[in-house]
Structures are given as structure tokens and as C-alpha cells.
């Protein structure tokens, strides 16, 4: 069995390399985007030029010129900031059914020191397939046990993880769940309650160790090497947020209580039943990364559109909301997740902000990401219309000022097979 897996892995590696070579190179340089409409979160679409230099947006105003720039005519087109998917496994998994191509789920209950950035595969075939829909940056998130690791925010272009690093890393906590795991969960109600209590106890025990460790480590430098505990020190010290995956109403309330008691700065992720606890989330000012929007309601008694409407309801209640797909190979559906949120009640502007600037704010990288302003990273795309509509075409894509070819395995196969030659003979 291992031989087969090894064989598949080698095979995959070879093919990945081959196909990556078929994709055109990205181009660097000075680019002047002329006569387009530039989107701003405050004013919407405004006719303007935009200049890209040294990977940054260097100017945004009408009638720009630069003799050294490659001019891209954007007449009739719209320029938007690149979209950020706030929760994915992109770069960490290649084929979900082939376990040795998955790098997001380490062994152990407490592994916050596992760094997603380490395992990002810059040559993943999934990356070009997804970015061509205007997604320029994603959070790659480890999964599994209580503390599965540290998520990494990455730009979807680069040859090394370091080149892709977008400047945010966040420890993930899968908050203990009090519900049935699925329809076929055979545990009795009593067993579920006991399991949940046990899990909470484990969490608290670990956290009190982390606090003790931090207290000592804050005073003296030569504490014993303990990666499990040192990885959460910045959180204990209030210097970094903890990303808490929590979905069920009762669990969200328990997580709010836990973060309050432990004075933990939190970002809640998932939050499928946020709409059931709007006041508590708003009161405690906890930012939320929710999604997928294209999802079933969590309970069979729920309204059919519960997952579609959740993000909009939270936004309306004053909660800071970003949207994720929780996807690997179909991160490209991020704009459609946001679009469904709009169809079911979220304002368009808020939905677009939730996949750009709001996400950047939650990750603390709004100085560099999330809007088309001078000095920010040139992560942007040029489209012929509303980026949430499926019939809109992305015409150009820039990541950190690189002009990214709009090619992927999917477009290459289309080019090759639309009119196959030889055909039948």
C-alpha cells in the first residue's frame, strides 16, 4: 500500500512540475492602467488611472503618465482590489483523498507550533486554477485537533513560501464542540455532554500551563524549550489574536465566556450560527470569519437559507465580518459565496469589503492590503463588470505588482481539447 502511495506521490510531483512549466511566466515592471474605473470602498467606481511600481500601487488619479510604464488600456473596464479568502487549505493540500498530499493535519492534541507557512507548496496546481478568478491572497489554515497549528496568510504568487508570506500568522483553536458531530453520531446525550466537559477541561488545563509558561518566560530568557506553550505566548500576552473555530450557538456563547475570562483577543471562525447570538458577538466586539456561505443549514430544523443569510445578519448587527470558502481546490468560488450573501440580504459594498478590506483589517494587514490606495501592495484585478457575477470576465490580474498570466490547468486543457486533434480518426 505504501509503495502505491509513494508511486502516486512521485507521479504527482513529476506531473505537477511539468504542468507548472507550461504556464507562462508572470511579468514584473511598471504598469499604467489607463482610463479604467477604480473601485474604492467609500466612493464606489470612479474614473481614474492607476500606476504600479515596485510591486506597489504608486499613484491613483486621472491622467497619469509614465514613459517607462507598460500601458494597459482599461477603457470600459473596472479595477478592484484582489480578493482575500479568509479560510482555506490552499497550498496545504493537493488531492484530499490522497493523504500524503495533505499537509494540514498533524498528529497531537496541542500543536500550535506547526506552521502552515512551512508546508505551503508554491507549485500547487490548485493555485493558478483559483487565483484567475481574482483571488490574490488566502489564509491557509491547519485542521485537526484542539490546537492544530498556526495559519498563514499568503499571496498566490511566488516560488518560495517566504515570497508568498503576506504578513499574518494566527494560532488556531478548534473550540470544544457540544453538538452531535453528524447525523450518525451514536453517542447518547449524556456522553456528548461528558465529552464536551472533558474537552473544555483539557483546554483550560493547557491554557493555565500556557499562562504559567508565559509568566516565567516573560521574566527570564532561558526557559526550557517547549514549542507547544511558547507558540501561544503572544496570545497569552495579548499581543496576537487567537483564531477560534466555533459554529454552534451554545459553543459560540461558551467561547465568548472563555475568551472574556482568559482575556484572549479572539477572531471567531466558522460561526455558522452567528445569527442566533448577534447581540453577544456585537457586544464583545469579536471579529468573525464566516463561511462557506454556499452551505447547508447546520440543523435540519433550520430555515433553508440560514447559511446564505448568516453573514448579512451579522454585518447588520454591527459585527465585523469576513468571508471564507473553507475550500482547497475551489477557492475560486469566493466571489460567488459573497454574491450569495448579497442575494440573501447583505449589502453589496459590505460583502465586497468582507472579501477585501475587512479581511485585511481582521488580519492586521490593512496598511498593505484590501483597497486600491497609494502605497499598498498591487494586488488587484481588472474585470468587465461586477466581480460577483459569474458572467463577468477577469481581464488582468496583478499580485504584488506581478502581471499574472490568466492560465491554469483548466484553461490549458480547454485550449487543448475544445477541438481535439486528431479527432475521431
Amino acid at each position, binding site marked *: 500500500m505504501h509503495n502505491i502511495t509513494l508511486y502516486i506521490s512521485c507521479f*504527482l510531483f513529476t506531473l505537477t512540475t511539468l504542468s507548472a512549466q507550461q504556464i507562462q511566466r508572470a511579468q514584473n515592471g511598471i504598469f499604467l492602467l489607463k482610463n479604467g474605473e477604480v473601485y474604492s470602498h467609500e466612493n464606489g467606481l470612479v474614473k481614474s488611472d492607476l500606476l504600479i511600481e515596485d510591486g506597489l500601487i504608486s499613484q491613483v488619479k486621472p491622467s497619469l503618465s509614465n514613459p517607462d510604464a507598460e500601458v494597459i488600456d482599461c477603457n470600459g473596464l473596472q479595477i478592484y482590489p484582489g480578493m482575500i479568502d479568509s479560510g482555506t487549505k490552499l497550498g496545504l493540500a493537493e*488531492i*484530499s*483523498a*490522497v493523504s500524503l498530499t495533505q499537509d494540514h493535519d498533524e498528529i497531537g492534541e496541542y500543536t500550535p507550533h506547526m506552521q502552515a507557512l512551512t508546508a505551503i507548496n508554491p507549485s500547487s*496546481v*490548485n493555485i493558478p486554477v483559483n487565483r484567475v478568478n481574482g483571488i490574490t491572497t488566502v489564509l491557509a489554515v491547519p485542521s485537526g485537533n484542539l490546537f492544530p497549528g498556526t495559519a498563514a496568510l499568503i499571496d498566490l504568487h511566488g516560488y518560495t513560501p517566504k515570497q508568498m508570506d503576506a504578513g499574518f500568522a494566527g494560532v488556531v483553536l478548534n473550540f470544544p*464542540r*457540544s*453538538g*452531535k*458531530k*453528524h447525523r450518525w*453520531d451514536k453517542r447518547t*446525550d449524556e456522553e*456528548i455532554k461528558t465529552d464536551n466537559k472533558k474537552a473544555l477541561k483539557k483546554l483550560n488545563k493547557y491554557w493555565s500551563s500556557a499562562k504559567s509558561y508565559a509568566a516565567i518566560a516573560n521574566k527570564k530568557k532561558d526557559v526550557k524549550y517547549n514549542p507547544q506553550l511558547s507558540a501561544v505566548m503572544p496570545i497569552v500576552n495579548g499581543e496576537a489574536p487567537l483564531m477560534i473555530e466555533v*459554529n*454552534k450557538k451554545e459553543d459560540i456563547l461558551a467561547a465568548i465566556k472563555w475568551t472574556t475570562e482568559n482575556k484572549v483577543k479572539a477572531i471567531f471562525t*466558522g460561526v*455558522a450560527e452567528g445569527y442566533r447570538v448577534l447581540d453577544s458577538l456585537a457586544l464583545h466586539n469579536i471579529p468573525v470569519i464566516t*463561511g*462557506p456561505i*454556499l*452551505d*447547508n*443549514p*447546520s*440543523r*435540519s*430544523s*433550520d*430555515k*433553508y437559507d440560514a447559511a446564505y443569510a448568516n453573514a448579512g445578519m451579522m454585518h447588520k448587527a454591527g459585527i465585523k465580518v469576513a468571508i471564507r*470558502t*473553507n*475550500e*482547497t*481546490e*475551489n477557492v*475560486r*468560488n469566493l466571489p*460567488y459565496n459573497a454574491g*450569495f450573501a*448579497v*442575494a*440573501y440580504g447583505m449589502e453589496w459594498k459590505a460583502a465586497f469589503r468582507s472579501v477585501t478590506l475587512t479581511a485585511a483589517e481582521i488580519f492586521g494587514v490593512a496598511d498593505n492590503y484590501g483597497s486600491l490606495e497609494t502605497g499598498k501592495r498591487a494586488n488587484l484585478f481588472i474585470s468587465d463588470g461586477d466581480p*460577483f*457575477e*459569474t*458572467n463577468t470576465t477577469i481581464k488582468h490580474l496583478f499580485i504584488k505588482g506581478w502581471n499574472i498570466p490568466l492560465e491554469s*490547468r*483548466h*484553461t490549458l*486543457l*480547454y485550449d487543448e*481539447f*475544445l*477541438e*481535439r486533434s486528431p479527432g*475521431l480518426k
Partner: protein
Amino acid sequence: MKHIYIFFLLCSSNGLIAQVETGDVLIKNGTVLTITDGIKDSTDVLIRNGKISQIGKNLTISNGETIDATGLYVMPGIVDAHSHIALDAVNEATRPVTADVWVGDALDPYDVDIYRALAGGVTISHAMHGSANAIGGQCETIKHRWGVLDPDELRMEGAPRTIKFALGENPMRVHGERSEIVPNTRMGIEQVFRQSFAEGQEYQAAWKKYNSGQTKTPPVYDHKKEAIVGILTGEIMIHCHSYRADEILMLMNVLKDYGVKKICFQHVNEGFKVAPELAEFGAYASVFSDWWAYKFEVYYSTAYNAAILTRNGVVTSINSDSKELIRHLYHEAAKAQKYGELTDNESLRLITINPAIQLGIDDRVGSIEVGKEGDIAVFKNHPLSIYARAQYTVVDGVIRFDSTHDPVDMRVDVDPEEGIPAFIDSAKHSGHNCEEGCMQGAHTHQH
């Protein structure tokens, strides 16, 4: 004495055909996307006794419901050619050939997913056996008559019989890898088919001999072989789970050898590679809009599959295979349009008349035409827009989903002793999840 028997026989066969509720409804002044006869602005559609009786202007109804579709889009009810909702059991994963079993014996009218599919404009689904076996069980085409309590009332009476076949990793894993019986490879899968068809032919010949008086004793009745004979005679149509180009070609070669003319390939992610061969055979393809890379055999996929197949002349549909996806097939069709620039009508065909053709029910549903069944979806915004929202869904002239009367809890079988409710954690269920779809009940660790 004989007469009494016949009397009982008549009673019981009558009892099998459930009385289906039909209704009268007038859908006024909508933009009617007929699919087969263009777009008709500000037009009324009148349904009487469950059938479309008139399409035109200023129609009236004396008795029945009226839907004001001013500013709304009226399209045929969406048809899903691959689904597993409304089923208590999906996989009889114990033998490589289970042609004798039938999901129609396990229909579940209480499944709230039926209502959720209606809330996305879907009126018909092909409730399929799973993909654990090379020759799986027989399937059932159902109408989403949410609210009925009798499983028989879900059946689309008269819809042709269909059977599930499966190629590639799933049957190889379930039988070869797990139980160490053939098939463990794609070679083995071919031989399972050849063996079954040969046995079916022998069985068929034995009955012919008996019926013509050449032999005195009848052959032993065999439920499994009866189904195989049904495939050979064209009475039962194959719907085959498939991914790779080589295995698709293999099955078409086997079918040619046994004179089987009709097949719909399901998923068929590498169909685009053999689109000319599929078109030449006359095979149909029912695909995902963009699912890929969840397993090795779909790593060389493209979201442009539906477009390539359509352009090569293959009748193509978009299916769900998922209780989540079935709720927004109109959006899946829109994505299929994005990848390969299909026209609006070509895209809408992928979820209406084309799946109806694949299920052999296109003379009854799949377009808005006088005489067809009154299955209609009414959308706010064009159904291919991301902002589309189903407003009303009508089955046989009965309004089964009405967004203006849409209570939160739509379950019809609330368990009075339910304690902690099942809570499906979205974090564990993103993307393609075969435990929810075609591999349900197959007890593998495979997603």
C-alpha cells in the same frame, strides 16, 4: 377461483400506483424562459390539472392559485440527473454486482432536503444508488412533492427505469482493496461487465427456449439477471459513475459488443478528452460544473468540461450529487457558462431539458410547452445571475415552495424525544464530500 385471484391482483397493482395531487395555477406576466421556444416577455403560463394548458397573454383562471410574476423569471422546474436525497439507503456495498437492488425500496418522503431543493427551483431528481459497485442498484426518478407522507407518491410514474454502474477508484477500493475480490483494477471492472452481460444473454436465451416450448422446465428466476436483461433489451438505461477517459472508452466498447445503445455517463470529469467518441456513440454526459481534485482520478479535470462536451455535440447536464449543491443548480449552470462561454439558453438547458433527455422524460418535463407537466420555477433576477432567488416552485400545478409563506422549521417528522439535535459542522463539510453523496453507507474512510 381464478377470478378471485385476478381481482386481488388488480387491487394490489392499483394500490402500487399512488394517487398524485395535481393543481391549477396561473403564473401571470413573467419573463418566460421556455428553453425550447425562446424567451417570451410579459407572458402568462396556465397550468390546469397539473399540465401546462396555455401560454399567452391575458389568460385567466376561474379556480386555482395565481402567482404574480411581474418582474420575475419563469423557467421549467430544474431537473437533477444525479442525486441521493430522499433515500434511506444508497449503497448495497456487499457485492460487485447488485443489479437486483433498487433504491425505490428506500424512498424517504420526510427528508427535509426535498424542501431545500425546491427552494432552489428543483422539481425532479434522479435518486441514485451509490458508486460502490461496478454494477450497482436500480435508481428512481422522483418528483419533489414535499408534504406527501407515502413514499410511492414521490415516484415519477412512468419514468423509464435506470441502473447505476460505477468505474474506477470506488468499486476498486470497496471490493478489491477492502475485500480482495475482483475488481481491484480497471481491467477487472471491464470483466465484471462482460461476465454479467454474458450471463444475462444466457439467461435471456434460456427463457426464450422455455417460452417457445423447446425446454420443459423454466429457468430459475433470477432478479439480478432480470435487470441485466432489461439493460440488454433497452428497457433499463445505464447511468455510469465515471471519471477517466480510458474507462469511459472501455465501457462504450463493452456496450458495443453487447448491443447496448443508451448510456449516460455521470461525473465524467475526463469526458472532455473523449468528447468526439462520446458524441459518436450517442452517449450522454452529466457533469459537475467545477468539482475536481478531491481524488486522484479527478486531478486532470477542467471546469470547461461542460462547454467542451456541448461544443462537441454531447447532450450534457449539470448535476449535484449533493444535498447542498442541489439547492443552487441554477448557479452551477451559471458557472458552467462562465467556463467556456455557453449562451444563456445552452446553460439553462444543462439543468432542464438535457437532464430530462438523459432520464427519458423530456416528452413530459424540462421545458415550458403546452401539454407538458406543470413543473415550474419562478425566480427573482435571471436564474443565471448570482443574485437569483427562487420565489415559487410548482410541481404538477401544486405550489410546493412559496418564499412568501416559508416557515423556518419545515420538517414533517419531528422526533418528540429528540435531545441534542444533530449539528452538521460546516468546517468538516466543505467541497466535495462523498460520504454525503455517492459513497454513503459504503463504510470506507474515503472522502
